[in-house]
């Protein structure tokens, strides 16, 4: 265990960062808009502040401003930012550059996009130490290995010799935290470090981050939109909305007694309850399907039955074969053996063999609405195309139907000529739902449709999906790794792990103990809105052994 470095960061409780009336402008549509509107922020040494809010609330912009930095297309207009006695608004760029990476560090959301694929992990980890001549290379290397051990990375002595693509997403995120720790900074800014990770992996990363931050007495700003996560990590919480502070409070205080209505609404989000219903009318039956990418087998004897008009949730971490199952159903990846029965008759395995009507009946909604819609097509093109293609609607009739569909998804006809870039994240996902609905389908496969959205928006989308199901008797296959979503909307649950079905059945049966080991791990890894949850979980699991299949 490493003990050096602790105590080098000054006394706990002393003010480290003070931001007063900070205003930041962003440039879009040929003019400047204020995106952070006079926010105050005080952070003490050793304190972890959780910064929460929806996307577009100005969280990341404010986090970067704590380093005296504004992204291209943004500018710091007024206010003061004082870091340990240094006025970052007035300091010359060269001085600020020396601070960054030595006394202030930044951990980005996507570690995969932030590492240089052409260099080994350890060389990138120690880069800032070397550049700023903090210590000799060999010493930095051995320190990096110690940090890897602290971050509970497997094989800490040699993992640094690997390249970024040779380790998993969760490991990369921990390596990035190690990189930030290497210079023992006074302040680290974490920008959604676990958002892209599976719940089982997230637990490990959260535990490791909390451990090192605590040990080195580092102050941190933890940006996220996941309230349950911030409850584990932060001492104090700041809620932002539209670039303004909504509420500031201690974590426990805010969780138990939120004051502002907006904060209350954030807390109240997970409120959808749907009684599970059973049905014997099977619309889709996956019968002993094996599938492979080349020679790598990804689905092993998968059998799933989907009842008509119900929601089947398929859960599991990435690599468990959830999305591959969807690809087999849609025909994008023909099964090696086994068959898919739709309304009692076998679907041709490959996409090419299916008739237009078979294609129409099964629609798909994607995780990322950004990439699921052609950025050069207007809403009219996007929703109108399936109408034209499947139903032969044209001109005025087609436009009318598009407007009807827009109303169904609670948007109005003014959206018809917009491009995807002119829509918010939730609106985009709604348009994708309308596109699927346009084909008048019987089955919709929803692949992680809410995981990229803020919680309030998520709730809206889930409610919409439930309402549409009731109105049109649509069947959903809902692929997700978010157990809260599963609890909210599913009738039946299928748990998948490493290409196999671990467990399947009615929601209440699956969620009630006893569970098979994997289901237990998955369910217990879902963060809860209790500040002691992570501590308790780690204790119950035995805090020495790393958990989960994060390889």
């Amino acid at each position, binding site marked *: 265990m490493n003990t050096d470095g602790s105590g080098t960061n000054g006394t706990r409780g002393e003010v480290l960062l003070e931001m007063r009336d900070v205003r930041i402008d962003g*440039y879009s549509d*040929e003019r400047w808009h204020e995106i952070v509107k006079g926010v105050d922020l005080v952070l003490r040494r050793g304190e972890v502040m959780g910064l929460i809010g929806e996307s577009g609330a100005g969280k990341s912009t404010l986090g970067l401003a704590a380093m005296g930095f504004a992204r*291209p*297309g943004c*500018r710091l207009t007024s206010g003061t930012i004082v870091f340990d006695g240094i006025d970052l608004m007035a300091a010359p760029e060269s001085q600020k550059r020396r601070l960054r990476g030595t006394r202030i560090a930044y951990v980005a959301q996507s570690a995969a996009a932030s590492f240089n694929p052409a260099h080994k992990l350890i060389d990138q980890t120690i880069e800032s130490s070397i550049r700023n001549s903090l210590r000799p290379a060999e010493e930095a290397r051995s320190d990096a290995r110690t940090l890897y051990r602290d971050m509970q990375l497997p094989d800490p002595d040699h993992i640094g010799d690997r390249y970024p693509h040779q380790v998993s997403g969760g490991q990369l995120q921990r390596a990035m935290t190690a990189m930030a720790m290497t210079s023992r900074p006074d302040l680290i800014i974490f920008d959604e470090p676990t958002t892209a990770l599976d719940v089982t992996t997230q637990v490990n990363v959260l535990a490791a981050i909390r451990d090192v931050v605590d040990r080195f007495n580092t102050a941190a700003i933890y940006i996220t939109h996941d309230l349950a996560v911030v409850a584990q990590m932060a001492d104090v919480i700041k809620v932002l909305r539209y670039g303004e502070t909504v509420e500031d409070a201690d974590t426990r205080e805010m969780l138990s007694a939120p004051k502002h209505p907006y904060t209350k609404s954030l807390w109240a989000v997970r409120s959808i309850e749907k009684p599970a219903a059973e049905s014997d009318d099977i619309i889709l039956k996956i019968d002993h399907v094996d599938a492979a990418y080349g020679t790598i087998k990804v689905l092993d004897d998968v059998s799933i039955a989907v009842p008509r008009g119900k929601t089947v949730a398929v859960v599991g971490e990435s690599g468990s074969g959830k999305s591959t199952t969807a690809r087999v159903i*849609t*025909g*994008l990846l023909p099964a090696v053996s086994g068959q898919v029965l739709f309304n009692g008759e076998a679907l041709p395995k490959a*996409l090419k063999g*299916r008739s*237009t009507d078979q*294609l129409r009946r099964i*629609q*798909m909604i*994607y995780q*990322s609405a950004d*990439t*699921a*819609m*052609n*950025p*050069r*097509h207007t809403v*009219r093109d996007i929703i109108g*195309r*399936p109408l034209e*293609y*499947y139903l032969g609607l044209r001109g*005025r009739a087609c*436009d*009318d139907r598009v*407007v009807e569909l827009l*109303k169904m998804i609670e948007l*109005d*006809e*003014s959206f*018809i*000529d*917009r*491009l995807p870039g*002119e829509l*918010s994240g939730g609106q985009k996902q709604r348009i994708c739902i309308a*596109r699927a609905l346009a*084909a008048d389908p019987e089955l919709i496969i929803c692949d992680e449709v809410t995981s990229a959205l803020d919680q309030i928006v998520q709730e809206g989308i889930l409610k919409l999906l439930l309402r549409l199901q009731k109105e049109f008797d649509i069947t959903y296959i809902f692929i997700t790794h978010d157990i809260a979503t599963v609890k909210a909307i599913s009738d039946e649950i299928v748990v998948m792990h490493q290409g196999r079905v671990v467990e399947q059945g009615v929601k209440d049966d699956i969620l009630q103990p006893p569970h098979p080991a994997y289901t237990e791990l998955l369910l217990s890894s879902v963060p809860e809105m209790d500040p002691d949850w992570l501590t308790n979980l780690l204790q119950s699991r035995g805090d020495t052994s790393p958990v989960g299949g994060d390889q």
Partner: protein
Amino acid sequence: MTEIENTYSASGEVAQVRARRTFAQRLWIGLRSAPLTAWFGMIVIAAYLFVALFAPWIAPYGEAQVFPQPFAPWGGDFLFGTDQLGRDVLTRLIYGARNTVGIAVATTFLSFLIGGGLGLIAAINRTWLDQVLSRFVDVLMAIPSLIFALMLLSIFGSTVTNLIIIIAVLDATRVFRLTRAVAMNVVVMDYVEAARLRGEGLGWVMRREILPNILPPLVAEFGLRFCFVFLTIAALSFLGVGIQPPTADWGSMVRENASLIQFAPYDLKAGLTPLLPAAAIALLTVAVNFVVDWFLHKTSGLRDEH
């Protein structure tokens, strides 16, 4: 978030609800911020186009009209003198714009049609067809293109049609590679998969889903390719296998009047004559590059200046 005022009925004039700027407005905003070099380029290109389109009305004489005095000095009836056969140099410069630029534009279009089309197919298909096309392109690119073009032109004969087809095919290899590379990034997008799931054919996926998203780099490449094609044609004409007399073009004008350059010590203007068509080539190439540069900068999305 600002919502748009909506005063239209649902089925009525939906087409008029536009949140976005019109194309003309965006064009104007773009032009206003264009740097001087881009303006220079655009003006020069416009001037060339004007001259090329209205050549018969601008030119003082006929394209192949021969006067009794070859190598006439500058001034008098002939602003830039006459060439070795007694044809007015200014007239031939003006007609040269029409022929050289016209053929270059046609060739570039054809090469984009071939290279772009096959590149898109290869990117979407990604099976043996992609392999066959890509390897064939590799083979074509391995042969120095000017020498290859010379060879093919001597085999098939130097007609304008052959010239266009041969240069277009050779140039299409570069276009193929670029198109395939940029289209590959778009093909993996979910919306392309969504289109395939819908059952869309190859034509729709190519034209509607992929092409609009790769247009900016292709337009920029079009400008650069045009320059290269233009230079290749001029070079081939200079070597005598390009555009054939009596059709006026700048490459052969340089060759025909090249000997005049040795008279420069005695008559500077006569020495300059072969340089005039060369300068015309150079100016257009520079102008096109200025515009392409600006366009690339605009579409690359770099916003460092703010």
